[in-house]
């Protein structure tokens, strides 16, 4: 505990973390400030003149491309670097696996060094697609070079992966690496706690609950503007895992899968009532907490886990034919949202229905594409098996893509 509180001291940890970051944090801050001010400008909160002034005052020398070019650069670099394996194998194929591993390792180190020295330091690329591809492939090569395929203990692979992706999360401020870090952490827990697997749900809930609280403490002390996306993503994942750790479906199915639990007719998992309780109460607790503390994060996560709770119930119990349940559920959702939209016409305890700041993901053209894929009217009517107007297969549905 003493060590933890020592680590949480601003003057100790943050200079250390800042040194770990490959980017120039002052420039990153200017860049992100500008990005944030831009959302205000787009939302009409800031006038054109003011926006020009802000731009002049926050000149960042970091370079990033627009989103689709970032994707193109990522895909091309990723493809180009990973196919380097071809010539490598051609050169040293006859020398055996060790030679291949050494070559791949060297190639990986070269890629990482190039990404850092040239792309990030000299060319000032900031998450340009090239940088991501460079360190993903570079670290994968290094990982393979170090580990090979010969180790029997799977846990070692996961722990090494955990180390690599946590480096990526901080050093390159990479969000995908953050997700991977959480996944690796859960996997390591699974594999290392095999002897007390029955308590794993509680371990997960307590661990991620604790990490969530620590994250709240840290974000008050860091430069929140720079790490905002990381904290939002991590908090979301932590809250989600606290729920999933106690979710009845997850616990039951994993108990059967992992511990070989066999359930006969009328039997239930140990402490079933507890997990039923978690499944119902956690979403409600999130929602109430979110409304009381005006936390949009809790409200969003509560909506997500409420959906999961509904699926959990539907999986084990059926009250009506699925098509009727779907229709009724849809009707209820429409009613709830319309009633709330009417109710929040005026501000109620600070909650309003109107948009204040436009999300950076808000794009009517792309929402339209999503709508045409998830709503009805697009089936080819050619056989008797076709179901006219069957509508979305519940594929996407991220209508306004928040988060």
């Amino acid at each position, binding site marked *: 505990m003493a060590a933890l509180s020592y680590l949480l001291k601003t003057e100790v940890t943050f200079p250390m973390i800042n040194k770990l970051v490959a980017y120039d944090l002052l420039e990153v801050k200017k860049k992100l400030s500008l990005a*944030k*001010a831009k959302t205000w400008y787009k939302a009409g*909160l*800031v006038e054109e003149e003011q926006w020009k*002034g802000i731009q002049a005052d926050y000149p960042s020398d970091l*370079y990033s*491309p627009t989103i*689709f*070019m970032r*994707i*193109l650069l990522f895909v*091309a*670099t990723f*493809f*180009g670097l990973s*196919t380097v394996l071809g010539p490598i194998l*051609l050169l040293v194929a006859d020398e055996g696996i060790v030679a291949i591993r050494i070559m791949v390792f060297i190639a990986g180190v070269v890629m990482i060094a190039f990404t850092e020295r040239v792309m990030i330091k000299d060319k000032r690329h900031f998450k340009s697609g090239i940088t991501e591809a460079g360190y993903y492939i570079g670290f994968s090569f290094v990982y393979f070079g170090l580990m090979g395929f010969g180790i029997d203990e799977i846990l070692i692979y996961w722990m090494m992966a955990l180390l690599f992706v946590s480096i990526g999360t901080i050093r390159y401020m990479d969000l995908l690496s953050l997700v991977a870090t959480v996944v690796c952490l859960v996997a390591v827990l699974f594999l290392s706690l095999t002897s007390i697997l029955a308590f794993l749900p509680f371990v997960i809930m307590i661990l991620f609950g604790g990490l969530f609280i620590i994250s709240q403490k840290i*974000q008050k002390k860091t430069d929140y*503007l720079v790490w905002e996306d990381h904290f939002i993503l991590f908090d979301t994942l932590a809250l989600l895992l606290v729920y999933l750790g106690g979710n009845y479906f997850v616990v039951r199915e994993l108990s059967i899968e992992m511990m070989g639990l066999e359930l006969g007719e009328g039997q239930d998992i140990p402490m079933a009532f507890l997990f039923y309780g978690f499944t119902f109460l956690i979403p409600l607790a999130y929602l109430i907490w979110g409304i009381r503390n*005006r*936390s*949009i994060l809790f*409200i*969003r996560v509560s909506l997500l886990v409420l959906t999961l709770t509904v699926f959990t119930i539907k999986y084990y119990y059926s009250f009506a*034919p699925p*098509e009727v349940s*779907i*229709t*009724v*559920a*849809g009707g209820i*959702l429409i009613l*709830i*949202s319309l009633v709330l939209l009417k109710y929040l016409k005026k*501000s109620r305890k600070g909650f*309003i*229905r109107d*948009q204040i*700041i436009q999300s950076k993901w808000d794009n009517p*053209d792309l*929402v*339209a594409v999503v*709508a*045409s894929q998830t709503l*009805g*009217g*697009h*089936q*080819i*009517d*050619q056989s008797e098996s076709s*179901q*006219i*107007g*069957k*509508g*979305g*297969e519940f594929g996407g*549905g991220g209508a306004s893509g*928040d988060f």
Partner: protein
Amino acid sequence: MDDLHKDLFEKEHLTEEQFQILDAVYQRKVISLYYELRLVLYLGIMLFTGGIGYIVYQNLSDIGHIAIMFLLSLLIVVGGYYIFLKSKPYSHTEVTVEHIYFDYVLVLVSLLIISLFTYVQVYFDWVELLLKWTSLLSGGLFLLMAYRFDNKMVLSMGITALAAAVGLTLSPVDWATGSLAEGVNVFLLSICFGVTLLVVGQLLAQDNVKAHFKFTYHNFGLLLIYFGALALMFDSNFEILTASLLVTFSALIGWYAWRQKEFLFFLYSSISGYMAFTYLVFSADVGDELGLFYFPLSAIGGVILLVKNRSHFSDDK
């Protein structure tokens, strides 16, 4: 909690009033539920209309048809009344209705009209008679609503339905579930329909008829052309011809998209063009060893070319 708005206010980039608004947002005194409520409404519409679609087909004998048809009609009338109450007159330019759920109610009513139509059709056993026309009628209705009330969602749904009417599926969701019809004719049809969309979108935009719909037409058009052409390249007897045409076409479109800064279309064109070009290279029988070097060299070469012009696609603007 960040202090950007405070900093900007102190540096006199923001007025007192602007600072107050932003401060209220960041101090959580005001919380906007705009996206959350609209997302819930959208999911509701998706489930409700999807569920009705199933009911029409599966439980036709169990539930009171007249009751359901009556309910659907009632909802359509109520929704339609709301739409005509709030809507503005038609104009060739962009018309925005400043009402928070107008666009979603429009989508809902359009889908309900189609559900009702399908229901009536199944109930009176006109399926044989009307089956071919369902998608066409849906597409027509969607397009009518899209232009009258200026809605891109309904426009996209209309284009997808029209594609279904000529026998194409525009939906990755359907491809994933394996209902993609195959065969050279389908690929050619896909290309023709795509070209039609491309041309229609361009002409309408030039005549200033809903010029902001151009993206939707071009997006679907290009996707149909590229998917059709790539499938044709891998699956037909005239693959070299197809690949050459595809390289030329994607180079032209890519060049145009680059100049117009339509980078999504540039992305499509680059990837399809690269695949076609690679196909040509390997049909020329370059040999295995050279082939291994082709991929890294060509891809990294492409990246270097792009990065030389990086200021053209910077995100600062």
